[in-house]
């Protein structure tokens, strides 16, 4: 299990989702991905994408105009 980060700042919906989707495709079950975005829409869209694809959002929050989402990758 490893921890990775993804910078999706200054991209707008759906690019943060696409970047997350493409990054997760490279990861293994149990890995954790921390995604940082500036589009507040990501706070809804990335968890929705995770629900559809079975990945687990461990935490999501807004901080200083940024959205941070922690995802545990499913198998």
């Amino acid at each position, binding site marked *: 299990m490893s921890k990775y980060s993804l910078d999706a700042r200054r991209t*707008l919906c759906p690019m943060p989702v*696409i970047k997350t989707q493409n990054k997760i495709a490279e990861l293994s079950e149990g890995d954790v991905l921390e995604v940082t975005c500036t589009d507040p829409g990501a706070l809804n869209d990335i968890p*929705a*994408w995770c629900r559809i694809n079975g990945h687990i959002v461990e935490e999501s929050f807004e901080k200083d*105009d940024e959205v941070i989402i922690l995802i545990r990758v499913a198998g």
Partner: protein
Amino acid sequence: MSTQRKAVALISGGLDSLLAARLMIDQGIHVEGINFYTGFCVEGHTHAIRKKDKAKPKRNNALWSAEQLGIKLHIIDIIDEYKDVLINPKHGYGANMNPCLDCKIFMVSKARQWMEENDFDFIITGEVMGQRPMSQRKDLLPVVVRESGADDLLLRPLCARNLAATLPEREGWVNREQLKNFSGRNRKPQMALAKEFGFEDYATPAGGCCFLTDKNYSDKLVDLWQARNKKDYELDDIMLLKVGRHLRPQPHYKIIVSREDGENKFLQGYKKQFATLEIKSHNGPLSLLDGELSDEDIRQASRIAARFSQGRDAEKVSVLYTSKDGKEQMIEIPPMPVSEIRQEWYI
């Protein structure tokens, strides 16, 4: 036991593709969604940028549709490949810069490629015969089938009974009798079917899901191409066409003036790519300058930017000009009176 057949559904986020996919799921087909991002999709962008829109709920309708259906959704970035569709549409443009028929052909051909790579059996779309003037005309539906290379693996569940049977119907993977025969612009049959399935709160975008069908947006795109003397763009170019007031006071430069705080923040991200103007003596917009500007142009642009600040009635306003390479110059100028801002400058 027969093999469960697999269909890839083009999911736009609208009602029709939602219903088409649901009809297939109800027939026991394994459906996964595919959604293409061209850079011109209306989804989310302006909500994300404009502060006044932030109170509205934000959602990506394609993801919402997939969640309602309980299917996977694959969102695919086709920004670069889509340039050729927009710049050289074989079948031309619609009322604005929308190459709807070429766009549909391209997306179905991409779906066919995805189908082959992922070992799926056929493609479904939410097209309804006669619903749209360009891409869904009765005589043009076969053009999509032919030119996309999908041939009889393209099934349109909402209007299939008006069309020749496709391979999934002929082979009995799908029961044709349970498909629909919708046609024309009347939305009542779709709304009734949505009610039957229990779908509520589905998306009903007034101007469609693509900025290219919008006249104002299309005008800005044409202006960009004319000013650069070539039909080309990068993602940042087309994003910026969605933000701010765009004025072209001279053929060789354009000024993009933010309209509110959210746009101000968004434009901040472009400060290294463009020369900028910031109002320092009053609250006011951040402006980007696109083109090569002389000192006189910079003064003219500064007066325009000041006009949109809270110092619009002041004798003088302080404007900070920053060149692309970071050199700063403070300019004290009187704001341009509204009577001097020509209507034809607005793009």
